[in-house]
């Protein structure tokens, strides 16, 4: 009941301030407010589709001119609402002028309808700040003032999804304003949130959070499993008749992807068991921690393999100090099916420099692998290629993630805040900093496109794999969906927003 009403309200009220529908919209809003208030305990669909609050198309294309008639009315309606709805402290003095109507009085409280409205205000402020940082009429002072205002309005720990999200974007922009964000993210081999900060928290405490957050992320969303399962299924299908399999993993992280693969391999019914060798790439240079971390991952994987009777060996291959990949540093054994596994930028992953990824993929080509599994973030179609357009796209992307997490676990507010703090917040900061630095640089397109242009051939995603992805996603909230964007590519999305894609490739001269 509440859901229906809210959606109606959003649809009518926000994307277009049409004069003809204003009355109905506000009337509906009143009803809604009361309804949602009573159902706030089980508000599982409260923010069902945040996208309807903000009309992304409207926002991202400036040239969308309306007809001139009704222009003034339209803006009048809007500004009346602006002035009346929120802002007890900042209210403009003429808000109680003779034109105040019953509807606007009704809207004049910080209720749920207000929350949506606040989200819209935040988006406008963020856009303006991004524009002030980079636009034609660049003004650092304006950007500063807007960010100060934003910080008054939001906190990363409280408030609605949009408020928490806006807090991280505000922080990201603030980083750019101070020049710190850009500098830190520019160093290869360092993670975007880097070690440049003046405060270094004690690791142990923080890692507890990380574990908890990772656990929560796994439970709350299909983001991690979607990539792992789709890739693993493709691998299994590609090595059906192989007795020796060698997987080169670009970013092994905690290695959880391979546990399920091993179980699947062990349970293969036909013939003797398959030997699995995994080579994890480790980051060279200063990242001694990387080496030991991966060593630990290997130890754990070995123990697990032993426990289920899976023949297994584990190696490391160190990347150069600039994270470049040298194929010659890889130990290859004749007769092994070579698999290249490239998980990029899952929500809990570190950011990897595109130079490093490019060197890995082009190096991989020389090895003539049987299969390449690639998982990467999807970006939206961006009309405006500038910073602001990409910034808005990124905002849209993360708002979809936030909403999907909330929809799945509406009551676990604190858990979500933890996931956001540990994974998403730093991701946002890094991603905004990269967009900022990449201004004017030529775009390389998605990694899938680059693989295609390098000559890799697509391999169809099997029906079974597709079904599996759909079933996986079905375990979570209704909003998730799987799309087959190309014969070799599955995309995981939330509502209308594409978030992650998994694609499968093979070498140019492979006859598979």
């Amino acid at each position, binding site marked *: 009941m509440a859901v229906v009403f809210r959606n109606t309200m959003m649809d009518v009220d926000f994307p277009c301030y049409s004069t003809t529908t204003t009355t109905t919209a506000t009337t509906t809003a009143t009803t809604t407010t009361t309804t949602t208030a009573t159902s706030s305990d089980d508000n599982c669909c409260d923010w069902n589709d945040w996208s309807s609050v903000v009309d992304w198309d409207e926002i991202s294309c400036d040239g969308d001119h309306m007809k001139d008639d009704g222009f003034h009315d339209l803006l009048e309606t809007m500004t009346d609402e602006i002035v009346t709805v929120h802002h007890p402290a900042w209210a403009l003095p003429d808000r109680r*002028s003779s034109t105040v109507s019953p509807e606007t009085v009704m809207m004049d409280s910080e209720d749920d309808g207000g929350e949506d409205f606040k989200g819209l205000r935040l988006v406008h402020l963020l856009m303006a700040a991004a524009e002030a940082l980079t636009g034609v009429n660049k003004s650092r002072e304006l950007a500063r003032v807007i960010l100060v205002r934003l910080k008054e309005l939001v906190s990363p720990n409280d408030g609605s999804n949009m408020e928490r999200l806006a807090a991280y974007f505000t922080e990201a922009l603030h980083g750019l304003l101070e020049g710190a964000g850009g500098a830190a993210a520019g160093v290869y081999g360092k993670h975007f949130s880097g070690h440049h900060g003046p405060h270094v928290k004690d690791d142990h405490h923080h890692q507890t959070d990380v574990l908890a957050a990772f656990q929560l992320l796994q439970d709350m969303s299909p983001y991690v499993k979607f990539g792992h399962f789709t890739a693993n299924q493709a691998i299994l299908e590609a090595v059906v008749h192989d007795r020796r399999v060698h997987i080169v993993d670009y970013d092994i992280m905690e290695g959880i992807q391979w546990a399920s693969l091993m179980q699947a391999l062990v349970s293969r019914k036909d013939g003797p068991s398959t030997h699995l060798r995994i080579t994890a790439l480790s980051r060279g240079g200063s990242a001694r921690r990387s080496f030991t971390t991966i060593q630990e991952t290997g130890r754990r994987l070995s123990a697990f393999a032993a426990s289920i009777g899976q023949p297994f060996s584990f190696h490391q291959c160190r990347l150069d100090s600039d994270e470049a990949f040298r194929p010659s540093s890889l130990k290859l054994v004749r007769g092994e099916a070579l698999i290249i596994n490239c998980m990029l930028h899952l929500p809990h992953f570190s950011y990897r420099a595109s130079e490093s990824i490019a060197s890995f993929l082009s190096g991989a080509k020389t090895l003539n692998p049987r299969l390449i599994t690639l998982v990467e973030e999807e970006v939206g179609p961006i009309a405006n290629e500038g910073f602001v357009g990409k910034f808005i796209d990124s905002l849209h992307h993360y708002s979809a993630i936030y909403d999907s997490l909330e929809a799945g676990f509406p009551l676990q507010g604190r858990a979500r805040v933890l996931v956001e703090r540990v994974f998403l917040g730093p991701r946002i900061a890094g991603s905004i900093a990269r967009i900022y630095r990449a201004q004017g640089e030529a775009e390389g397109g998605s990694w899938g496109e680059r693989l295609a242009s390098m000559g890799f051939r697509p391999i169809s995603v099997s029906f079974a794999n597709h079904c599996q992805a759909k079933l996986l996603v079905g375990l979570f909230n209704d909003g998730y969906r799987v799309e087959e964007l190309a014969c070799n590519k599955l995309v995981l999305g939330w509502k209308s927003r594409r978030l992650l894609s998994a694609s499968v490739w093979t070498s140019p001269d492979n006859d598979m």
Partner: protein
Amino acid sequence: MTKYHHQQLLSHPSSSLSQPILDSSKMINEEPDPNPMSDHNILEWIEGSLPFLPPIFDDPYDSWWQLHVPAPDQEQINRCSTSFDSNVSTVTAATSATLPEPPAIPSDHPRPSDSSKKRKASDDHAPKTSQISRKSQNRRNNNEGDEGETIVEQGLVPARKSSGSKKAAAKSGGNTCNNKDGRWAEQLLNPCAAAITASNPSRVQHLLYVINELASLTGDANHRLAAHGLRALKHHLASPGSPVTSAGSTTFASTNPKFFTESLINFSDINPWFRIPNSIANSSILQILQEQNQPRNLHIVDVGVSHGIQWPTLLEELTRRSGGPPPLVRITLITRTNHEEQSRNTPFAASPSGYNCSSQLLGFAKKININLQINRLDNFPLQNLNSQVIKSSPDETLIICTQFRLHNLNHNNPDDRTYFLKVLRSMEPKGVVLTENNADCSCHNCVDFATGFSRRVEYLWRFLDSASVAYKGRESDERRMMEGEAAKALTNAGEMNERKEKWCERMASVGFSRQVFGEDAVDGARALLRKYDSNWEIRVEDRDGCVGLWWKGQPVSFCSLWKIAPDTK
């Protein structure tokens, strides 16, 4: 639909090609015993490796809170010097109101004196320093000045030495960097006006949202400008030409006479916006009187916005003249009233209902033994003035004093302005003092809405910026009223300014010839200016002899003195 239910569904093999992995995940879930790992327990899976987690997570995630903690001053300065844009120092200004002097101002800029530097930095935030520096400056003036006749008028500043030109020259070097970056409100208001002109509603809507978030009738000049600008934009969008609602911000017309008078006097004391033009007008009147051969009656026609408060000083100075005051002093006040057309409500011209300065002026004149006569022409259209209306007689010295009122006259189609100047000419005054805003026209006949709006905003910015300094950033009803009155410029259809040159051309075309201000007038004004913020300056144009009042290197107003051209007599 529970997860568990789903997983049971999944346990049926979905394909014979190979075993889907979800099967194994089900296995993991349901048979945890043989497995060290469970899908639901990543903690267990990783627990042995706590110290070896990816380094990304080592970084503390508290930069958010860092933002709220003002960094030490030294650190801020260091950061500024290493960052790619020296303006970045403005970033820090938000975190604390008691910042050191912004290092954003390039150090290679010439600075007139340490004190003015301090003042500039202080703006809203540090009234104390500005007070101190002003004192020190006055002290300096004390030493170099000697007492003179203009001092009586100034009261506070006992100096009249003509060191002003030197000071102005030095100052102009420092002030010409009118940092546009600090004027953020205009960077939202002007694009919004441009989007209105370009009929781009989504852009307009976006900018209105943002302006609305930042607008406030309290706070610094930018926030105030945003608030006034927002109201003006909304007014324009709602229905161009409808009456302006000025609810919330008081204006001259909406206040009471006592408060009004006190506010005007106090404002004149802290901001030279009107004080300098008044002073120059008074000096000019004395100058013209001086040039008359025999003592004659003085008749002043006041088409201005001083609401009478400029005249006591003149009267007092008249008593100090050699030869004493004129036998009769007549002042004809051409006032505006509240009944005038709302949409053409020129800033500062209206007065509260019931306000009448005549009795005070008369009382004051009586006290100092001046024979004063006051004539009020209320609600009188300027175009209808003539010698009969003002009852001028050939044996009196007629001087017409116009201040900030004539720009309200149409200047094309019909050209009421030239017509009115011709009327002035026909009254055969001994002198005309013309003071106007030195700005380009913003009427809709001359420019599109966006251009006109940006010019109005520019005008208001100077007023708000200088008022902010004058009131030392403090809020008061008085400040709100003065600013509310100035903000009429944003909505007033009669903002038909012209540049000084254009005005001069017009005056010359109807038969006036430009006079050079006497040294007393200029020096007096300069001496008087010293008591105000050092961002103010007086610039005398060598070319035309006009006296310009400038704020932060930008022209605000000009004063000019005219007589009937000899060949047209």
